């Protein structure tokens, strides 16, 4: 595994070389000085994680090690890793930017990301653990005809992973361009290369530890920031909010509003605003977030890394706790950005109330708060954390995409379950490289696009395709292969299709005139999830084949196993 160190050396050289190159080519958006603290801290993170990857590589011998770290992760560790997988840069930077911009609506958005967890715990977590082995298709396809159900599951996984991955890559490129003064494409290539190294050599073990370390760094960083902000306001939220309202009012006054209007606009940061404009969009978006969480393949996969149902439950409890804690702090940090960043002429255009540097700089809110409260050291640390955050998330996504291809498509569909562990592992690694290259290419191709819709789309697909199939196959006796596959694909196609003709893509991305979008709502989930569920139901009950009868009969075995853990794959997997 010496090659690992050669790769890490090459990456650091690339980083330094890119910097020298970028120094002569400072564009409008990347006026940041070379951030040596951030680079040093990030390099330290890279060295530590590569060292862990080297250690994990020695333990990644079988396909099982690659997919689920041999099932030997504890509930607490897995909880942190789930949190590390879930608290993406979109959450960290995007929600703090959203709170800075519009205030209260940020919390509505973050709550949506949290409320799926209890439902996963109550209805799915232990059943997933008891039935599953490596991918969610193991669970959904437990009693079904393997070819079709796995083809569906792999499609659902790859579509979800692709959109989520592109969003992360584009975010990474833009962020690193701002933070480190690197060119966009270099940043994307570094993220792609590191992610490939983690997943290729270290599989699930390395990915898990990258996620755990990242979660600890992120939680530590945001705790310190929120604590410092609160200390500044004598631990009074009211004082913080009052100051934020004052800042926003001053901005509105400067824009030429009358005092009453300005006061109203200023006070709007404390009120729900335009984020949820109509009830249908509100409920639809809420459903996408809530049930999408239960259908995200890279999250579902984490349940197979723990040895028992009990540890699976503990994982979700820890994950929910950390994620909830994180969102409360992000809300505080977003308000801190209003009072500390938007009032600082070095960082912001104070009169306009925006961060300097043009489009996309709002995402700098959290890192600039770090600079305000902790100087260059904390700025460097939080920048490094943001980079690490993206790495941890893309590694998890890539791993789940690679598993879907190697375990579901290659081993089961093409080799009919006769693939040996070694060749399965080889296919996983080839897929990892392919996914890495595709992610880098698409990340570069989508540089100028508005990526906000992509994470929402990933959740909508997960909620409309993966979740109904998983839910019905585990809990409903009459579900059959035909129902699951047709219903699942209907949910998949309708969620993607409706998103394309919704304003977020039709108007914002494809450039059609405003108001011409055929589908007017913010999220397709209310409709596409219904289509998915009705599809599964209808094509199951009308399925009278002998195969269907056999599948219904097998439900008893599946049920007993899912509820008692009888015969569930144990911790070893060796």
């Amino acid at each position, binding site marked *: 595994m010496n090659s690992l160190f050669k790769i890490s050396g090459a990456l650091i050289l690339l980083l330094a070389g890119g910097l020298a190159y970028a120094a002569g080519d400072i564009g409008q958006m990347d006026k940041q000085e070379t951030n040596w603290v951030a680079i040093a801290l990030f390099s330290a993170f890279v060295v530590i994680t590569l060292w862990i990857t080297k250690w994990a590589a020695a333990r990644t011998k079988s396909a099982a090690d690659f997919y689920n770290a041999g099932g030997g992760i504890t509930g607490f560790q897995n909880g942190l890793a789930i949190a590390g997988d879930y608290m993406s840069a979109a959450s960290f930077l995007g929600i703090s930017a959203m709170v800075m911009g519009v205030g209260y609506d940020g919390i509505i958005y973050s709550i949506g990301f949290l*409320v799926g967890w209890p439902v996963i715990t109550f209805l799915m977590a232990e059943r997933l653990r008891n039935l599953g082995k490596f991918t969610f298709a193991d669970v959904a396809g437990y009693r079904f005809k393997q070819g079709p159900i796995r083809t569906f599951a792999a499609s659902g996984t790859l579509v979800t992973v692709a959109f989520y991955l592109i969003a992360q890559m584009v975010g990474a490129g833009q962020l690193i361009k701002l933070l480190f003064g690197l060119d966009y494409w270099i940043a994307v290539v570094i993220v792609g290369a590191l992610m490939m190294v983690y997943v290729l050599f270290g599989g699930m073990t390395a990915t898990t530890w990258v996620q755990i370390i990242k979660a600890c760094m992120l939680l530590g960083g945001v705790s310190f920031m929120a604590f410092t902000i609160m200390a500044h306001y004598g631990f009074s939220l009211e004082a913080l*909010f009052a100051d934020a309202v004052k800042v926003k009012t001053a901005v509105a006054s400067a824009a030429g509003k009358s005092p009453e209007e300005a006061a109203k606009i200023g006070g709007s940061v404390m009120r*729900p605003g335009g984020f949820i404009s109509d*009830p249908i969009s*509100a409920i639809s978006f809420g459903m996408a977030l809530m049930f999408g969480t239960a259908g995200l393949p890279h999250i579902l996969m984490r349940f197979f890394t723990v040895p028992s149902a009990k540890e699976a439950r503990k994982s979700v409890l820890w994950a929910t*706790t950390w994620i909830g804690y994180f969102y*409360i702090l992000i809300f505080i940090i977003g308000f801190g950005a209003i009072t500390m960043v938007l009032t600082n002429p070095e960082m912001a255009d104070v009169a306009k109330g925006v961060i300097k540097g043009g489009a996309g700089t709002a995402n700098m809110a959290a890192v600039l708060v770090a600079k305000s409260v902790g100087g260059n050291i904390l700025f460097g640390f939080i920048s490094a954390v943001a980079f690490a955050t993206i790495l941890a998330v893309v590694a998890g996504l890539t791993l789940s995409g690679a598993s879907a291809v190697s375990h579901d498509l290659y081993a089961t569909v093409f080799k009919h379950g006769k693939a040996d562990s070694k060749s399965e592992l080889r296919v996983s690694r080839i897929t990892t490289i392919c996914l890495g290259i595709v992610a880098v290419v698409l990340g570069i191709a989508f540089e100028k696009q508005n990526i906000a819709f992509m994470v929402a789309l990933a959740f909508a697909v997960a909620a409309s395709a993966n979740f109904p199939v998983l839910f019905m196959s585990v809990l409903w006796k009459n579900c059959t292969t035909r129902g699951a596959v047709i219903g699942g694909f209907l949910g998949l196609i309708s969620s993607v299709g409706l998103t394309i003709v919704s304003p977020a893509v039709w108007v914002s991305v494809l450039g059609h005139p405003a108001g011409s979008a055929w589908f007017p709502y913010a999220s397709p989930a209310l409709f596409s999830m219904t289509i998915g569920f009705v599809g599964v139901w209808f094509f199951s009950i009308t399925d009278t084949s002998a195969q269907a009868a056999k599948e219904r009969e097998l439900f008893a075995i599946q049920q007993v196993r899912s509820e*008692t853990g009888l015969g569930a794959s144990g911790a070893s997997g060796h």
Partner: protein
Amino acid sequence: MTDPMVARIQANPKYKELRKRRNKLGWTLSILMLIVYYGYISLIAWDKAFLSIPIGKGVTTIGVPIGFGVIIFTILITLYYVNHANKEFDGLTAEILKEESK
């Protein structure tokens, strides 16, 4: 794993008890969570004015404690289920498996 074992477990009164208790708790709490979340979303969709009422003389609105409340409720309801399941259901499951694998 053999069918007779599955049939024996299915016939075991303790398994029926486990299923009944777990399903009841799981679905009750799930529905509770759905009510809380969609109640909150409905408030935002239909009655923004309510969430915009300031608390006392300050700028903080009722929406803030309600929003934080939903987050804390989410954590507590999960804690309640996990505690319950780890104590009660796992013990029962272990008993069933022990009895039937003799």
